[in-house]
């Protein structure tokens, strides 16, 4: 067996090495350089696939990736402010943008805060669930999920005030379970969300009119939930209560 291997080496490898010895130097180097250069694209591909880049993406074949048209929020050098989407011209009203109902759009009935929900809305369970979702998105960062004025942004702001970073000031968000807020009519709550109050910004542009009313309904439900009389709850006896032991440990 070993004899055979030796034979093959003698017959094939030795002449090959002899041939190689006579190969002109320039050919040798050309082959070496080309082989080394061929690893460069592979290395670049490896880098591209394993790292981040802030350089614009390379599209070898453009097809119609970018067309001579403007899409949402694109830049357009034609206008001084660079916006392709034009802001609404002052004094104009968009379709469906007619504000013709002080109750629905302002929470005001006969120059006083509305005490009832607008007739255009159906206040039911689905409406409250919608309000809960919207409250958790837009209100809970400051007011907290329970409405106690203890949202995460509030905590963060307090930290920044303590360390005195970049002139941060903070007015604590209202606890929605305070009597002052509880006594407010639905119209006044709606107005607060719509137009803001003190340091709280107006949310009319972020939340639709219907959703703002849904949030009002949810806030009312939240307030009720923290101050509920067991007698007002159907089947209250069936709901598990804390035992005396658990209560005392608090």
């Amino acid at each position: 067996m070993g004899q055979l291997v030796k034979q093959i080496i003698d017959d094939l490898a030795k002449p090959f090495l002899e041939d190689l010895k006579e190969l002109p130097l320039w050919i040798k180097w050309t082959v070496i350089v080309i082989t080394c250069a061929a690893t460069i694209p592979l290395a670049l591909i490896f880098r591209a696939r394993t790292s981040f880049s802030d350089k614009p993406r390379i599209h070898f074949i453009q097809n119609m990736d970018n067309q001579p048209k403007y899409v949402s929020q694109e830049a357009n050098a034609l206008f001084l402010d660079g916006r392709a989407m034009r802001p609404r011209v002052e004094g104009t009203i968009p379709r469906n943008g007619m504000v013709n109902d002080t109750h629905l759009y302002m929470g005001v009935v006969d120059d006083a805060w509305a005490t009832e929900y607008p007739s255009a809305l159906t206040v039911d369970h689905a409406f409250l669930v919608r309000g809960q979702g919207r409250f958790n998105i837009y209100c809970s960062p400051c007011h907290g999920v329970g409405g106690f004025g203890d949202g995460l942004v509030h905590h963060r702001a307090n930290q920044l005030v303590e360390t005195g970073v970049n002139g941060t000031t903070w007015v604590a968000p209202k606890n929605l379970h305070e009597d002052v807020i509880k006594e407010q009519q639905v119209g006044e709550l709606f107005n607060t969300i719509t137009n803001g109050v003190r340091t709280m910004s107006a949310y009319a542009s972020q939340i639709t009119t219907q959703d703002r009313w849904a949030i009002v309904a949810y806030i009312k439900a939240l307030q009720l939930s923290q101050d509920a009389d067991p007698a007002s709850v159907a089947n209250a006896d069936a709901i598990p209560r804390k035992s005396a032991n658990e209560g005392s440990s608090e």
Partner: protein
Amino acid sequence: MTQQRFIFPRWTNLVLPFMLVAGSTAPLYVAIVVAYGFSPQSTDVGYMPEQPIPFSHKLHAGELGVDCRYCHNTVESTQHAALPPTQTCMNCHSQIHPTSDKLKPLFESYETGMPIEWVRVHDLPQYAYFNHSAHVTRGVSCVECHGRVDTMEVVYQHETLSMGWCLNCHRNPDPHVRNPDLVTQLEWGIDMSDAEKIANSISWREINNLNPSQDCSTCHR
């Protein structure tokens, strides 16, 4: 004048084996470079442009738990998940960091009314139609296409956004849908096994009767 014969030098014996080796490796090499180098995984994924303000999604969406929709509030009702207007930032930043240098472009924008020139990270070809609201309200989470943005200090492109990648999900949406109420909970499912996730996904697919279209005209309209 004696005629001299040309005798091939000995090394020309190597030409044939060399041709065989080079001829078989070169096409393979080209195929590898094209397949990997031209793929959107190399050209597009990992694009992380520098933004005019070093806004951290990790802080706002992650640590502070602000819902995606607080800022991108059009995502459930329109095609485009809008970047928020300067006013949305000012809801908090009128009080928080009002003298920060990093936020200078924000305050300038607020005073002058000029837009902040954010750089678009996710950019589909313009012949492809994509509607955010159609996906989000049917339980396709933000995380399916954008990755864990709530852990990104600087946002980058996480998926290829290629046609084959879109079709993967349109052909087999089972591992990718959830309760539409939880679409912005990017960490949802982290404590579930793959089997649990798929079972959950299938149940929501049935509840919402999802049969994603694979027609050309669905996206190329």
